[in-house]
């Protein structure tokens, strides 16, 4: 057992750190470090910078244009880019649909889609959830009927993150209604510009419009845009969920936010002393920091097991649960640390970034929004309760 990184891994860390310092635009860094909102252009600019360095798909193997990093290198990359203020990679292309296309897609699909995911020329979104199919995903109803060399798609998807930015959507659709729900699902790639696709934004509690409803009305999809076999979509969906959970722990992001919390608690005062010196508050910070130290090692344990066996296992569910709990706990503490000025809520500041004339410290403008928005962490990607079901069945064999 050895908890030290190798000299090569440390050198790699330096390389990533230097890259972030040089290539991450200052205004994007400022937004990320202060929890302000990012635009489509911000995400694309960062993805392009990574792409030009050959790092567009940190989790991708070399044969598809990835750097072929080990799980530990991927972890270091995530940690360093998060620490340096890099936006998180938009996962829908890089981490979700791409691994499915690599594993189950045709050569033609791989050549058509993968390069443009890597270069950020095409933005993807995920068509999984429906109004009647959330945690019970297999009950989805969006219908795809075969007519010659096309499918005719009708139905509705919801909670579709960044559908308003997307060029393509990957969808789970029902192609057979006669069999068990899991056996009649197919995996389709649909051009968002197809006639009959409508996107309607959903306003969330923090005022953001990052999720949408996506409606399909007689949308024609060429059969060659089906990934793998007809009615095998559930298998691919489960494979995707496994990949979605790599680096799900979000240790890098949590470390960055913990550092932000400490800065904020040092700047705020209670009884005339820095809040961070208040024993009550210091204990709260310490508790979450200790949880995070443990999660970091748990994460590395999972990664090193993964390096030996390859496919992510159900223990990734542990990382999802604990990682999201920690991130949410930090947003709660940020809110408490900011105190009464956290009540100020002016959307323009969230969009525009730092405003020197604001009547409150600039670091508080996003803490409430962050607290509200991050409630989503324990809901999406399989709610934490669903993760517990997975662990109970697949690890604990109950």
């Amino acid at each position, binding site marked *: 057992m050895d*908890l030290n990184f190798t000299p090569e891994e440390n050198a790699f860390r330096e390389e990533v750190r230097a890259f972030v310092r040089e290539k991450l635009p200052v205004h994007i860094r400022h937004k990320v470090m202060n929890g302000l909102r990012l635009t489509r252009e911000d995400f694309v600019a960062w993805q392009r910078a990574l792409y030009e360095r050959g790092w567009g798909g940190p989790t991708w193997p070399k044969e598809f244009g990835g750097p072929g990093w080990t799980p530990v290198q991927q972890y270091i990359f995530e940690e360093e880019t998060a620490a340096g203020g890099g936006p998180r990679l938009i996962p829908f292309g890089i981490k979700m649909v791409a691994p499915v296309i690599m594993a189950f897609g045709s050569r033609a699909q791989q050549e058509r889609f993968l390069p443009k995911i890597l270069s950020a020329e095409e933005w993807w979104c995920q068509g999984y959830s429906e109004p009647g199919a959330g945690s019970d995903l297999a009950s989805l109803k969006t219908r795809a009927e075969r007519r010659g060399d096309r499918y005719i798609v009708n139905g509705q998807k919801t909670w579709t993150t960044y559908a308003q930015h997307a060029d393509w959507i990957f969808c789970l659709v029902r192609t057979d209604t006669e069999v068990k729900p899991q056996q009649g699902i197919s995996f389709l790639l649909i051009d968002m510009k197809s006639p009959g696709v409508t996107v309607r934004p959903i306003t969330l509690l923090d005022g953001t419009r990052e999720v949408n409803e996506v409606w399909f009305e007689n949308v024609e999809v060429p059969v060659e845009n089906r990934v793998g076999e007809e009615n095998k979509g559930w298998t691919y969906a489960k494979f995707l969920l496994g990949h979605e959970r790599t680096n799900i722990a979000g240790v890098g992001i949590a470390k960055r936010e913990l550092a932000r919390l400490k800065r904020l608690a040092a700047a705020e005062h209670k009884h005339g002393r820095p809040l961070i*010196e208040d024993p009550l508050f210091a204990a709260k910070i310490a508790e979450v920091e200790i949880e995070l130290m443990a999660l*970091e090692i748990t994460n590395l344990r999972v990664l*090193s097991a993964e390096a030996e066996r390859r496919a992510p296992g159900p223990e990734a569910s542990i990382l999802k649960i604990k990682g999201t709990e920690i991130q949410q706990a930090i947003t709660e503490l940020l809110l408490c640390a900011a105190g009464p000025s956290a009540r100020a809520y002016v959307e323009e500041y969230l969009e525009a970034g730092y405003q020197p004339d604001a009547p409150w410290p600039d670091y508080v403008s996003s803490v409430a929004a962050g607290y509200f928005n991050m409630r989503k962490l324990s809901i999406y990607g399989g709610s934490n309760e669903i993760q517990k079901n997975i662990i109970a069945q697949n690890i604990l*064999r109950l």
Partner: protein
Amino acid sequence: MHFTFTEEQQMLEDTVRRFVARDYTFERRRAVAASPEGWSREVWSRFAELGLLGLNVPEEHGGLDVGAVETMLVMDALGRGLVVEPYLSSAVLATWLIRLAASEAQQRELLPALARGETLAAVAQAEPGARYELNRIAARAERTSEGYRLRGCKSGVLHGAAADWLIVAARTAGEVAGYDGISLFLLRRDTPGLEVRAYRTFDGLREAEVLLHDVHVPAAARLGAEGQGLDPLERACDIALAALCAEATGIMQALLDATLEYLRTRRQFGQPIGRFQALQHRAVDMLIQYEQAKSMTYLAAIRSRDPDRRERRRALSAAKVAVGRAGRFVGQQAVQLHGGMGMTDELVVSHYFKRLTAIELTLGDTDSHLERFIGTMRANG
């Protein structure tokens, strides 16, 4: 970075696990704990034969001098067996304190005998009212013409009555809570004026109160430089703390296994109770806490001998907090999920729970380590 163990380490772990499974059954443990001494010399001799008592003894003194990972693996296995023998107090804590503070001659006299299992030692540091502060010492050692005269009272001495030698911390200078002025003395248990009052603890182990009634010792009984005892004491306690975390992790794993087995076999409402989602999620929470505690136990082992005091204490205190919280949760939930059976003395579950509870109150509780961790956090800026 990797989390695999060498072949030798795995063999060591297997050896202890096999010993526990075959020769340290729950019935045997119950009988040993109920005996007047509260531990078994026969078991101790087996530990010596297996080389366990010399793991932390330098090679030149007849030991194996292995790393902290080996101690972690042994303690984990001893935890599963709920072993009541003074392994932590003598073979880890006292052995390390002798290594860190004693002169070459003192080490030559003690360490080979400790490794062979012929002699046992204990550390008498804590005092009534001092809670977990290592430096809060009121016992005094005053210079006399031949050496020192010791007066005071030591409490919570782990396996104090089992020890042939006691290492007593007493003040040669300074105020009660001062950091300097603490000296260490090596005393035979039969030294005139030294009174050892043994008592049982709720986990079936033994501790002692040690009264120093004008105990006269020669100057040669002092371990290390006068007044400089706190540093080795702290370092030895940190090493023991890492070992204690490993014991707790082993117990938690055993409790989790027992609870899962119970959930799969106990039937109510016509089905195994493990089919009920409320209980499934509770079991998952136990697993998560256990895994997090295990991660911190690894960190504690790796950092336990780190000469950088701040780094070491930060990691060890974080580990004790994580292990303390997890141990309490896993212990309480194991009892809860076993229902009425969890409340009985008959099942091993309640005994694991009690040992975990005692561990939380040993070598610093959760709050005291949280406080110590905050101290290192602040020094961090």
